[in-house]
């Protein structure tokens, strides 16, 4: 539906600069999505090598954040963007922040994956991780798709998904507490799983922020905290 076009400026260079921050944000989104997928897989498959890769590559995501932020500051300084252009630039500076935080959470998940893989024990809680992990990966993917197409409807639908994720998170917490009560020896291990689940829930919140910013870019309407 709403197709935003950031082109046809009197200054062609300006078109290119806006297109570039958009493209680079999408690249960063893709990278973060992959980090998240790998981190969740590393937990479930006890793949410590994959987890190490995620931890190493977090630096890449950090660098992307700094680069994109710099490009945005340059655009503001050079072009004094207004209206939809201004909203896009502001959105991108906020979105890179959310993406970077998602990258951080993925790294935390990977850290826990290394610990979980290094010790034997129960795989209790993995079902919860797999289930919530799938939902969160899908939600992040939907958010990035909505951004690529500036699709407000898709963004609003994706925001809804966060409610389900919050519910699933609470259910998972209850399950994990039950495991710990049933078998106190598993507490240390299940706590690690609990942190993973917690990170996944946080990622859902960041994906929701992304969607709210998409609505802001297209409609100029701030729907946060409503």
């Amino acid at each position, binding site marked *: 539906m*709403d197709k935003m076009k950031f082109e*046809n*400026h*009197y*200054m062609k260079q*300006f078109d290119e600069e806006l297109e570039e921050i958009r493209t680079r944000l999408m690249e960063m989104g893709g990278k973060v999505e992959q980090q998240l997928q790998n981190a969740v897989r590393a937990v479930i498959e006890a793949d410590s090598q994959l987890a190490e890769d995620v931890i190493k590559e977090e630096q890449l995501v950090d660098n992307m954040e700094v680069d994109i932020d710099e490009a945005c500051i340059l655009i503001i300084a050079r*072009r*004094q*963007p*207004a*209206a*939809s*252009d*201004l*909203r896009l630039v502001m959105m991108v500076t906020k979105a890179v922040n959310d993406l970077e935080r998602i990258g951080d959470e993925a790294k935390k998940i990977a850290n826990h994956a290394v610990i979980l893989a290094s010790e034997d024990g129960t795989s209790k809680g993995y079902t919860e991780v797999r289930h919530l992990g799938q939902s969160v990966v899908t939600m992040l993917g939907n958010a990035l798709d909505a951004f690529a197409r500036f699709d*407000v*409807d898709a963004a*609003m*639908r994706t*925001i*809804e998904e966060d409610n389900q994720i919050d519910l699933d998170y609470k259910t998972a917490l209850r399950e994990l507490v039950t495991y710990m009560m049933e078998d106190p020896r598993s507490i240390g291990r299940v706590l690690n799983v609990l942190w993973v689940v917690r990170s996944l829930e946080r990622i859902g919140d960041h994906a929701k922020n992304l969607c709210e910013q998409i609505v802001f870019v*297209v*409609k*100029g*309407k701030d*729907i946060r905290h*409503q």
Partner: protein
Amino acid sequence: MNEANLATPAAAANAEKVEAKIEVKLDAKQNLEVADDQVTVGQCFTDAPKMTMRNVNVFYDDKQAIHNVSIDIAQNEVIAMIGPSGCGKSTFLRSLNRMNDTVESCRVEGEICMDGEDLYAPKLDVVELRARVGMVFQKPNPFPKSIYDNVAYGPKIHGLADTRVDLDEIVENSLRRASLWDEVKERLHQSGTGLSGGQQQRLCIARAIAVSPEVILMDEPCSALDPIATAKIEELIEELSENFTIAIVTHSMQQAARVSHRTAYFHLGRLIEVNPTEQVFTMPEHELTEAYITGRFG
């Protein structure tokens, strides 16, 4: 849009409005021309207007420069008029104190009132009108006289000062309000044309406010000035708005964004949109406004 996400019915109604607006925009995108029955969008009218303009048309011979413009200017408001070259914003501004009277071929139709008084009434004294509605031009144009005489000229011919002391006071006050006093108090009797461009422009503003106008019209007052002089004038506009009503035509959109309360966008002689300035520069209502302020004309 998914209604479930919107907490209140009011929010939902709002969202629908936004929805409708976007669709209009998409239609307009096909075509940057203006329809003949173009209606101004936004907030053209105010509760306590200083000046009211209704269905104003301005012609140069057969050519129509302003089409059916209706707008209010509120008391103590700073209103900015923006738009591409030739859009009619200066023509409209000049019709507010009948500067267009001096142009032979120019004809103004419609209603232009200040405090309810028709400014185009045949009996109206135009010289007195221009004291009540002062004007500052693009290029600083001090008289080739001393700084003192530049400011004193208006009060003298309008009989605003009975004594030399009164006149001295008006001159000092006006120069102070124009933030020029400290720079020129030692050389009041040197020529006004010897000042820098920025100082000359502030001298012209002092000259305009010396006759205690109610409204000040500014036609690109900073376009011949450097950034520092521009900043001084902008700061001055802010201060002056406490006592005067100001309408400013500017080519600098950042300037409009900085100094004005409302912004009016003109396009091909039509008033397209009037809205609070912060809205115009973040979420303009009309597609044409958006295209202009984001630099998509060409």
